[in-house]
């Protein structure tokens, strides 16, 4: 499903930012509220990187917990549920953290030294 599309975007992004380098690791920050499934990401990553400069790279996922700010009572609270509800009962909340998907860093093979 959309993990495949998101992984394709990850591969495009990494290729664009690592011109000519072979990538050995991709570190991805996954917000808990994005609904992305880590297992599906890993599965799709292997398929999507075949034949690219990322072939054989490992995908390291760092999960970021969801956090919401309530417009009714002003409180901030953790939330990993897609039904965004403050402890005070209000659903009038904004997402502070956890709705993002970000490539934080990559490891690339060092170029061989010139003779």
């Amino acid at each position, binding site marked *: *499903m*959309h993990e*495949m*599309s*998101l992984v394709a*975007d*990850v591969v*495009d*992004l*990494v290729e664009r*930012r*690592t011109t000519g*380098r072979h990538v*050995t*690791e991709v570190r*991805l920050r996954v917000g808990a509220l*994005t*609904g992305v499934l880590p297992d599906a990401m890993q599965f799709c990553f292997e398929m999507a990187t075949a034949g690219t400069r990322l072939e054989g790279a490992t995908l390291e996922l760092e999960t970021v917990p969801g956090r919401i700010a309530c417009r009714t009572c002003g409180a901030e609270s953790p939330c990993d549920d*897609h*039904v*965004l509800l403050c402890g005070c009962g*209000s*659903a*009038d909340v904004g997402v502070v953290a956890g709705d*993002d*998907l*970000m*490539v*934080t*860093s*990559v*490891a*690339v*093979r*060092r170029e061989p030294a010139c003779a």
Partner: protein
Amino acid sequence: MCVTCGCGQPGESHAHSHTHAVQPSTDLLAIEERVLAHNDHLAAHNRAWLERRGIRAVNLMSSPGSGKTSLLERTIAETSGRREVCVIEGDQETAADAERISRAGANAVQVNTGAGCHLDASMVERALGSLDPSEGSLLFVENVGNLVCPALFDVGEHRRVVVVSVTEGDDKPLKYPQMFAAADLVVVNKTDLLPYVDCDLDVVAKNARAVNPGVDVLPLSVRHGSGMDAWYAWLDRISDTP
């Protein structure tokens, strides 16, 4: 040399807090780029393009069979005198929906996503190039039938409308909260079938507002016409407001 901060060059000495846990034969590059940044950038470009031409774009989303295309056919037939309507149709395969829209009397282009489950901003950008909507027109982007993925992808729309039909049950907003939380309007279609199904319109509205406080919920029947005037009034309002 430390591949995290570059320290350890000859003549340097300083303290730092991170540990040196990187493979000796690799370099660590900071990227810090959002995966959807590229789509969001294209969506913003689409939005500005539409804004410059005074075109209002509505992203129409629902599960397959809720009545998106039928709603557009009736809208085109009954409001063509008021404003020009054009449509970008999204489906995995076939041009069937674009053909229906053309027969109803509006310009349409079909986007086939193949294995893809949603329209994204780059597909809509290309479709806008083919469709070339007139200034001041009302553009509908009829998304791929899917209550999950389209919610994640901004395509440059002005408003998002989610259609659910009474045959789907009244719990769908709770089961697909990302989709309903992103809606500017929830249309509940096929109210003509209420006597035959277990669906309570008040419960649909309550559930929609549980994930999207204050969202407008509009019951209607495309087949029989009830509620269509309220739909046209909503379209008039969004055409007039920024």
